[in-house]
C-alpha cells in the first residue's frame, strides 16, 4: 500500500534524524562566559581573580583582638553582642561567613590550580607561564595557611608545637577528603615548603602587585621564620627580598603620597607594596571609622614624625587610622610591603647581635617618615635589649593595623615579654594574660560541627 511505503520512509527519516548530529547540536555552551578551566591561561586567570585571591580574604579576628585599638563603651553598646563578646575576649559561637571561609577560598583555588597543572605538561614553550602559575598557587597557599596558623594556632614553641593543634592543611580540591587539624609545627613547615618552592618558580617583578613574586615569597619566608623565632633564617630571606625590592616612600614628597592631611593618604599599589591584599571586614571591630587608636600608642609618635599626620585623623576627641596602603578610608591593607621587611631585617640583625646594622635599617626607614624641615636625629641603642625595644616599638607604630600585632604579641610573650592586654567596658576591666590559651582564637562553630575537629 502506498501509505505504508510513505510511513516506512518517514520512520526511517526520523530515525536517521535521531542518529545524526545530536552531539554537535548539544555541545554549545549555555553561557558564553562559562568555561571549564583547562589551559594555562585559565589557571593564570583563576590566580588573577583578585576578588577571591587578594581582596577581603585575609583574616581579621587577630587584629580585632589585639591592643592597638579600643572602642568606647557607648560605641560598643551599638555593636552586636557577638562583637561585644569578642571585644572582651570571650569564647564565642560564630558561623559562616568568617575568616576561615574567606581564607580557604583562595586555598581551594590554589589547590585546584595545582591539580590542573599536574595534568598539564610543562614544556619549552610554556615553561615561563607554567612556572609562574605553579609558583603563584604555592605562594597563595603558603600565605593563607600561615595567616590562619598565626590566628588559630598557638604561637610557635619548639617544644610543644609538634602537638599544639594548628589548622587544617587542605591540599586537595576534593570535598570528600575529611578535615583534620595538623600540629602547628607541621602547618608552619608546610607554609615554609610551599613558599620555598614558590620562590624558585616566581618572577622577580610581577605585572601587578596582586600577583605573587619572588620578592613576596622571600618576604613570606622571612615572616614565617620570624614567627618561629628563627632570626637567622628570617634575616637571610629579608635580605634576599630587599635585594630585589627596596623602595621606600619618603613621606615628605613622594608621588605615591596623595597628601598627608587628606582623608586617604596613600596611593594604591604604592612603591612599597610587594604583595597586595586587603583584610576581611570580620566582626567590624577593626573598622577604621569606628575603632580608636590606643592613646599611649598615638602619643608615642613624635610631632615631627610625619606618620602622625599621615596615619591619623582626629575624630572628635580620639584618633582613627587613615593611613592604610589600601588607599581607602574603610578597608585595610594586609599584604606585604618593604617597610615590614626592613623592620624584620632590623629586628633579626639585633637578635643576631648586629646592633649597628639593626639601627641603620631602622634609621633608614624612620628618616623617610621624618619631617624634612627638621633635622632627623638617628636612634641609637645601648645594647641588644634596648635595640629590640626600640625596633619593636617602631615595628608596632609603622605596621599599624596590618594584622601583625597579634602574631607579634604571641612571639614576644613566648620570649618572656609578659605583655598583658586590658580592655575597659564600662566599669569592668578585662585582661588577657600573656600566653593565654585564648591566643589561639576560637574556630567557627559550624566548622567544629561539620568537620568534627576539636575547638581551641
Amino acid at each position: 500500500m502506498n501509505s505504508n511505503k510513505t510511513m516506512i520512509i518517514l520512520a526511517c527519516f526520523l530515525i536517521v534524524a535521531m542518529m545524526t548530529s545530536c552531539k554537535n547540536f548539544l555541545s554549545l555552551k549555555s553561557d558564553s562566559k562559562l568555561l571549564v578551566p583547562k589551559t594555562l591561561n585559565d589557571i593564570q586567570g583563576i590566580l588573577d581573580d583578585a576578588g577571591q585571591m587578594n581582596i577581603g580574604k585575609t583574616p581579621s579576628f587577630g587584629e580585632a583582638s589585639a591592643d592597638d585599638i579600643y572602642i568606647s563603651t557607648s560605641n560598643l553598646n551599638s555593636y552586636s553582642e557577638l562583637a561585644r563578646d569578642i571585644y572582651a575576649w570571650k569564647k564565642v559561637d560564630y558561623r559562616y561567613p568568617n575568616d576561615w571561609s574567606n581564607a580557604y577560598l583562595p586555598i581551594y583555588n590554589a589547590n585546584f590550580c595545582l591539580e590542573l597543572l599536574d595534568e598539564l605538561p610543562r614544556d619549552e614553550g610554556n615553561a615561563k607561564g607554567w612556572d609562574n602559575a605553579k609558583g603563584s598557587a604555592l605562594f597563595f597557599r603558603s600565605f593563607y595557611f600561615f595567616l590562619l596558623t598565626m590566628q588559630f594556632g598557638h604561637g610557635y614553641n619548639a617544644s610543644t608545637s609538634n602537638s599544639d593543634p594548628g589548622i587544617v592543611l587542605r591540599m586537595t580540591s576534593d570535598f570528600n577528603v575529611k578535615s583534620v587539624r595538623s600540629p602547628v609545627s607541621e602547618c608552619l613547615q608546610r607554609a615554609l615548603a610551599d613558599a620555598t618552592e614558590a620562590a624558585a618558580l616566581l618572577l622577580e617583578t610581577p605585572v601587578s602587585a596582586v600577583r605573587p613574586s619572588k620578592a613576596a615569597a622571600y618576604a613570606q619566608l622571612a615572616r614565617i621564620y620570624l614567627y618561629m623565632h628563627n632570626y637567622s633564617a628570617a634575616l637571610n630571606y629579608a635580605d634576599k627580598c630587599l635585594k630585589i625590592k627596596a623602595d621606600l616612600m619618603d613621606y615628605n614628597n613622594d608621588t605615591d603620597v596623595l597628601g598627608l592631611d587628606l582623608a586617604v593618604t596613600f596611593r594604591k599599589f604604592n612603591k612599597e607594596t610587594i604583595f597586595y591584599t586587603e583584610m576581611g571586614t570580620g566582626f567590624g571591630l577593626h573598622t577604621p571609622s569606628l575603632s580608636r587608636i590606643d592613646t599611649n600608642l598615638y602619643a608615642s609618635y613624635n610631632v615631627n614624625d610625619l606618620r602622625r599626620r599621615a596615619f591619623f585623623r582626629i575624630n572628635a576627641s580620639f584618633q582613627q587610622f587613615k593611613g592604610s596602603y589600601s588607599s581607602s578610608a574603610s578597608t585595610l591593607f594586609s599584604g606585604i610591603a618593604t617597610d615590614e621587611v626592613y623592620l624584620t631585617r632590623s629586628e633579626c640583625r639585633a637578635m643576631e647581635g648586629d646592633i649597628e646594622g639593626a639601627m641603620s635599617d631602622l634609621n633608614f626607614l624612620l628618616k623617610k617618615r621624618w619631617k624634612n624641615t627638621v633635622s632627623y636625629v638617628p636612634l641609637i641603642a645601648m645594647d641588644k635589649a634596648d635595640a629590640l625595644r626600640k625596633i619593636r616599638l617602631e615595628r608596632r607604630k609603622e605596621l599599624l593595623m596590618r594584622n601583625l600585632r597579634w602574631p607579634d604579641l604571641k612571639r614576644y610573650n613566648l620570649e618572656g615579654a609578659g605583655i598583658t592586654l586590658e580592655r575597659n567596658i564600662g566599669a569592668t576591666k578585662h585582661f588577657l594574660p600573656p600566653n593565654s590559651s585564648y591566643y589561639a582564637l576560637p574556630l567557627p562553630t559550624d566548622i567544629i560541627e561539620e568537620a568534627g575537629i576539636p575547638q581551641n
Partner: protein
Amino acid sequence: MWTDLLLVLNSHCPQKNYNMRMICYLWLRWKMLFFPGLLFLVLLTSSDVYAQENRLEKLAVPVKISGKIIVADATENGIYIRSKTGGTSTSDSVGNFSRMVKYLPDTLKFSKVGLFPIVRILRKMEDLKSPLIIRMVAEVKVLEEVQVNTGYQRVKPNEINGAVSVIDERMLSARTGTNVLDRILGQTSAVLLNTGKTNSNPQNKTGISIRGLGTINGPLDPLIVLDGFIYEGDINNINPFDIESVSVLKDASASSIWGARAGNGVIVITSKKAKLNQSLNVSFNANATIRSLPDLNSLSEMTVAENIEAEKFLFDNGFFNNRINNGYAALSPAVELFLARRNGKLSDAELNSKLDAFRSGNLKQDWLNEFYTHALTQQYGLNIRSGTAKHAYSITGGLDNAYDQNYAVSKRYNLRFSNDIVITPKLSLSTSLNLTFASTKSGRPSYGSVTYAGRQPYQFLRDASGNPIKWAQTYRPSFVDTLGNGKLLDWNSYPTEDYKHAIAMTSRQEILGSVALKYRFTDYLDLEAGYQRQKQSGTNVQHFDTESYFARNVINSFSQLNRSTGVVKYIVPLGGILNTGTSEVNSATGRLQLNFNKNIGVSSITAIMGTEAREGQTIGNGNSVYGYREDPLVYQPVDLVGLYPHFITGTNQQVPNSLSLTSNQYRFLSFYANASYSYKGKYRISGSLRRDGSNVFGAETNDKWKPLWSVGLGWSLSQEDFYDIPWLPVLRLSATYGKSGNVDLSKTAQAVAVASTNTLNNLPFIRIRGINNPELRWEELGQYNLKIDFALAKDRLTGSFSVYKKHGSDLYGSFLYDYTTWGGSDELTRNVADMEGRGFDAELHSRNVSGGNFKWSTDLYFSQNKSKTVKYYAANNNLSKLLSGGREITPVVGLPLYSISGYRWGGLDAAGNPQGYLNGVLSTNYSAIATEGRLNAGNINYIGPANPVYFGSLINSFAYKNLTVSFNISFKLGYFMKKSSIGYFGLANSGITNSDYSSRWQKPGDEQFTDIPSFTYPLNSLRDSFYSAAEINIVPADQIRLDYVNLSYHLDAERWRFPFRSLDVYLNSSDLGVIWRANKFGLDPDNLDRISPTRGFTLGIRGSF
C-alpha cells in the same frame, strides 16, 4: 495625552476630598474612554458584507433561472434563497429551485441554519445560464465542545486518561486584568498562586504551582506553551482577549509529553483561530478598571510620637554617637534636635515645640496626597474571523493602557494574524504572526521607598508655604551645605521633586511567527512540519537628569575642589546620567510530527511520533553615559578605570557604571511518541515516551539525555452492558503513571568558571562559580493519578475527582558542608533529597436551578496538596531550619516543604525579657537557646505547613432573564504564617518599626498582660531573633476571600434590532479582600507586611456581530 490629563486633573479636581476626586477622575477618564469606543462602533456598523451595487438595470424580459443545491451528507434540503431585488424562495427537498430575475446585477444569498451561507452575484446575462449548481457545506460553529489542547494534539476531554482542566473563554473573562495567568486563578483546581515566598529558586517568575511542588532547589515555574510551542517571552506580552482557552496539564501522563521541563505541570494557552467555512465574525471588548486608593494606615507601624520616643531613648544611650562624630552621616530630624539641645543650641521649650510639630504631622496622608492616585486600566480588543472552504483567517488587535496608583504608565499593543490555507486537498498551510509592543514609565515614589537617614521617615514633604523640604538621605544637610563653599552642587534630596528627574522607562517588542505545513497521506495518516521563531527585545532606560539627587550625588562624590583657587575639577561631568540596558530573547523551534488516527472496527488508534529541536538565546548589555543632556543631545566620556577619591570619605573608587554584556543559550533535542488505543469506546490504554537532550554545561554527553515516559488506562464504566445506574449516566475511571523531569541548566557537574576582567588592574580573570560535583544528576519526578469523571442525568451535576501521589527523587538540595574545602559557600548543591506530594483535586459543576427566567449554577474547585520531604542525605536539617517563617523551601525529613516552627515560648520574665527553654528550663540565655535549637531542636516546636493544604474556590452565578450576577469566593486553609513584631535591633539600626511597640513591657507587672519584650539597651539582636522566631508570633493563615463580583447584562440583539449577534455590558469588582480570617490580628495572609491590593471596579462592554 495622559500626562496632560493629569495636569488638567490636578488643577481641576479637588485635592483633599477623595470621593469628589474619584468622581472627577471617572468623569474625565470615561470621556476619554467613550470617544474611541464610539468611533469604533460607528466604523463597525457602517460596514456591510454585501457588495453595494449602484445602478440597477431592469431587464426587458425577466429571465427564469433554475438550478440545484447540493449539500454534502445532508438528508434534508430546503435552502432559503434571498435576492436583493426579487424577494425570497425555498428550494425543494432534493435541492431544486427556480426563480425569476428582473434586475441586473442581482445578488442571491443561499442560507440555512447549520450551513455555511453562499452568495452568488449575477452581473451579466451570461450569469443567468441554467442550471445554476450551488454546493453548500455544513458551517463550523465557533462555540463547540471544549477541547483539550496538549500542545501536540487536540482531543476531547473523554479521550484522554490524564488529568487536565480546560478554562474556556467565558471563564477567562470572568476576571479582569492584563495578565493571562492571573485570569486562570480560582477558575480551576490544583492551581495555586504562592504568596509571601522569597525562595531563590531559579525560574520562579510566575509564583504559580500546579499540584504543589515537585522540587526543592530546581525551577518552580510551570512550563508555558503558547499555540503548540514553549513560550519563552514575557507572559505580559500575551493579550488575554486573544485567548480562546487554557489547558492545565496536571499529571505526568499529560505533561510527560513535554519532557524534561514539565515536572511542574504545563499551562497550554491557545489563541483564537478561525475555522474553515465560518462566516465573518467580529467580536470586541472594551473595559476600564479604576481602583480605590491604598490604605497606608493598614501597615503596622509605630506612630510618629513613639518613633521619636524610641529615638530619644537611643540618643540618650549614645547609640547615634558614631554617626554624630563622623560629622557627615545623615541623622533623623528628632536626633538633630536632640543634638542641638545637647549642644545648647535649643532650649527645652523650643525642642518640645519642634517635636510637637512632627508629632502632629501625618506623613501618610501627605504621601497619599502627593504621590498616589486612583489606578486606571483600560483594555480594548477587536477580533475578526472568517473562513471559506479554502482559507480561514483571524485578526486580533488589542490595546491596553494602565496607570498605576503611583502614576506609573504602562501600555501594550498587540496584533495577531493567523491564516489557514488549503493548498490542495492533501496539503494545508497554517501561519501566524504575533506582534507586541509594550512600554512602561516610572511614576512617583511609593510609601516606604524613600527613607530619612535610613529610618522610617516622619519629616514633612513640604513646608507651610508649599515649598519642597530637603530630606537627609545619606548626608547631613548642615554638613554638605557648607562643605564645598558653595562650589558643589546641592547635595540634598527633595522627595517631592526627585521623581521628576529620575525617570525609568522600559519598552519591549516581540515578534512571534510560526508556519506549519500538513500533508495528509490518507484520511488517517498525516505529516506535520512546524517551525516557530520568536524574538523579544527589550530596552530599559534610567535617566537621571542634572537635577536628580542621583546625578548630583555621583557628580559631587567625584568632584575635586581646589580650595585655594575655588576651581572644581569634575571627574564625572556636570549633566545627567543615562543608564541603558537592552536584552534580547530569541528562540527557534522546529518540529516534525507524524499523526495517525484510525478506527478499525470497534477499535480506534491515535498516535503521534515526532522530533523537535529547540534553540534559545538570551543576550543583554548595559551601558552608562555621563554628562548627558537630551536637548541638544550631548554626553561626555568618563574614565571608568581610574580610582578617584570620594569628596567626603576620601576612599578611592571607580566611577560607578552599568557596563555589562551577557549571552546565554540553551538547546534541547527531543524525540517523542504518544499512542492511545481504545476498544469499543469503553477501554482506553495510552502511553508516551520522550527522550530529551540538552546542552547542560559541564555534563558528560550521557548525562545530557533523559528518557521520560507515561502510561495510562481508562475505563468507561457507564458504557458497560451491566451498568445500570440511570441517575448517573456517565461514569469513567482512569489511572496514569509517568515520569517527568526537571532540569536546571545553571547546575553543573564540573567546576565551572566565569571569565571577567579585574577592575583593579584590568587583568582578565576567571572565577570558579561552583566547585566540581561529578555526581550531579537531573531531577526525576514520578506521579500516579486516579480519576473519576461523572455526570448526573441531564448534566445537572458534572464533575471529576482525582487523587494523585508524586515522588520526586534525586532532587537538588543544599546541604551544609565543611567549607574548609572551598570557602565560597557553606552549602553545596547535590542530588540529596526525595520528596513526596499527595492530594486530590475536585471539580463540581452544578445547575441548581435551570429553565425559566431564573437560573442558578455553582462551580466548586477544591484541592488538597500535602508535601513532605521523605529523604535528605544531609544530617544537619532539623526544626531550627524552619524558624524563619516558612518563606523558603526547607527540607526537613517528614515535614512539608514549606513549613514553620517556633521556639517554645516561656512568656516574659519580671524584667520584660522574652524567655525560652534551655534543657527544659526557662532561660534568657539566647545564644545557648539558639545553640540547643540548632543541635537538637529540643526547645523548638513544629507548628505546621506554611503553604495552604486545602484551597479552592466557589463560584455562584445567578441569572434572571438577561441579567447575570456571579461571584467567586476563594479559600486557602490549613497553614500558618509568622507575623512580624517589634525587633529593637532593626528599629535602632534600620528604623524598622512595628505597632507592637506600643504594647511592649514597660514596667514590672506588665508581663502579666503582654508578650512583647521591653526595649533595652545595649541592643541584643539574639534576643530579638529569639522573640521573632518564638511560637507566639506564629498564627494560623487560613482565609476566605471574595475574589470578584461580576454583573453582566445581555442585550437582546434580536429583539432590540441591534446589528449584533451578542452584546453584553458588564461590571466587575475585584480584590474585594478577606471575608474571614483565622488570625486575630486583622492580618491579610496574602499581603503580610505590605499594603493589600486596592479594590478595583471595571465597567466594560463586549459583543460580536
